[in-house]
């Protein structure tokens, strides 16, 4: 997904001379073709993330569309004020490509695990957030990314992730995609947790349980209309996020349900990382299981709810 996303920056730059790329101190050979063929629009600025955000703001003030790339935690934690003031207050079209969203950097530990990046970005006025499910969806998003007026935080998965998106669904910024039809349950996911949600839904269907999957590729602006619509059809909404439970996808759903306040509301279960820094290493898959974010855990969470409420025999 990362390579696809960066390759798309070069593709877009070939036909639009407003597009520039700014990296921090990325891996050797990153976008080498772009560097070779359009050196005046390729920047590798060193380990100085705060400066990179400000520099991107300056370029954007003059009409350029900068795509900035570095590791997620360094963008969101280190550069918060630059992002808030230089990008969001000025509402500039700078795209932040964040490597290692969620638990991707499992072996590298808490300094590199982006577990609260969405919470940070979601709290900023004018910021937009996207978290595609796979490389093919990333292409569909990137094609329209330069048209988005304000700043965008693009959360990347590890790369080589299974393709679960469907070209028929297309990609409309700000509009979620229903990947599985809704029954008594709706699973809401984003990024690679959509894959886990789809597998969970398929397992549940073997038990005669129809669990819809709503892929929320855009987390801000939030597609509250779909949540309201489906909330009137289901008994349970279960959110699955590779992120702390605070102020991410599940919280966004909770806000919508709370603000809508229809007489009949479904139960909301938030699956996510508890309010703590991860204390294990290993792989992303291992951490997903550890935090009950894999398809089996989703399956069991749904079954437990249905049994505890008497909707299914215990």
């Amino acid at each position, binding site marked *: 997904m990362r390579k696809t996303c960066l390759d798309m920056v070069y593709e877009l730059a070939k036909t639009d001379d407003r597009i*520039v790329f700014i990296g921090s101190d990325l891996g050797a050979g990153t976008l080498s073709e772009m560097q070779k063929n359009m050196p*005046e*629009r390729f*920047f590798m*600025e*060193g380990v*100085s993330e*705060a*400066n*990179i*955000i*400000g*520099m*991107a*703001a*300056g*370029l*954007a*003030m*003059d*009409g*350029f569309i900068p795509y900035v790339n570095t590791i997620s935690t360094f963008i969101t934690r280190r550069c918060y*004020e*630059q992002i808030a*003031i*230089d990008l969001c*207050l*000025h509402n500039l079209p700078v795209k932040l490509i964040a490597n290692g969203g969620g638990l991707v950097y499992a072996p590298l530990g808490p300094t590199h695990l982006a577990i609260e990046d969405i919470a940070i970005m979601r709290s900023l006025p004018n910021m937009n957030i996207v978290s595609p499910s796979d490389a093919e969806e990333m292409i569909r998003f990137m094609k329209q990314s330069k048209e988005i007026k304000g700043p965008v935080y693009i959360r990347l998965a590890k790369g080589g992730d299974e393709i679960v998106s469907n070209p028929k669904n297309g990609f409309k910024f700000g509009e979620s995609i229903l990947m599985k039809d809704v029954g008594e349950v709706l699973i809401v996911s984003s990024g690679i947790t959509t894959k886990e949600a789809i597998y969970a839904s398929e397992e549940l269907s073997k038990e005669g349980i129809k669990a819809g999957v709503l892929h929320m590729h855009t987390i801000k602006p939030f597609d509250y209309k779909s949540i309201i619509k489906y909330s009137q059809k289901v008994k349970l909404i279960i959110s699955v996020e590779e992120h702390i439970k605070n102020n991410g996808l599940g919280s966004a759903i909770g806000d919508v349900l709370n603000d809508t306040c229809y007489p009949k509301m479904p139960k909301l279960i938030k699956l996510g990382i508890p309010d703590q820094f991860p204390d294990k290493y290993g792989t992303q898959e291992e951490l997903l299981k550890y935090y009950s974010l894999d398809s089996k855990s989703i399956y069991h969470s749904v079954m437990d709810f249905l049994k505890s409420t008497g909707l299914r025999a215990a």
Partner: protein
Amino acid sequence: MQNNISGKLDNRSIYLRHLVIKGLAGGKRGHLGSAFSLIEVLRVLYDKVLNIDPNDPKNINRDRCILSKGHGCLALYSLLADKDFFNISELDRFCHFDGILGGHPEASKIPGVEASTGALGHGLSIGVGLAISAKIQKRNSRIFVIMGDGEINEGSVWEAALSAGKHKLDNLTAIIDYNKLQSYDRTSIVQDLEPLTDKWKSFGFAVEEVNGHDVTELEKLFLNLPLKKSSPSAIILHTIKGKGIKEAEGNPKWHHKSKITESEINKLYSELELNL
């Protein structure tokens, strides 16, 4: 250099300070000390140096001046009002609920303000981006970024300085208002900046120090930029915080004042006249 910065002010410098006090009276508050050290450099920039047009403030070919030390905004407002970027009466509504002039400048509200500042250490990076943009587009726009001495405690300033040196941005001029007094106390006590000229030189800048209140000297320097071909310029202004009001000069209590009364305002106006 620092011995003669306590010299007299001419009519225009006093008039511009009058406008600052007008804003101060409007908002009953403001960073007087931080504004008064900046008047002469802003005056020289807006009177003689910058290619800008109040009737076409977004012209792509203009020069850009960013007041990175946003708290000195009353000085910038006085120049922008004087140049008719907005009506001078806006100064009376400084910090008012529906005024356009806040305690820190906002680009979306004020014609002639290039970037919203106030959080320190942002302006030079934005200036680097604007300077690179001008180079890519082969425009002659020059970028000026005015920073405070306290402000350059921020690490982000030095990240930006590295970048400016690397890209040989000779269309970028960093201006440091070295009044040697930050909010709490003297810079030499809070966070010593010396050797300041050597620091900027070592980051790839051509550097000059100047009496920041000497209009003739400032003009000489600013009309001959860049200081060196293929290098960004840094100009260190030796200034007096609160310059023009004896009680405020070098007095940290005048970094920012609030709840200013009418009689205090009148006293400020009459003290200004003593400079003539």
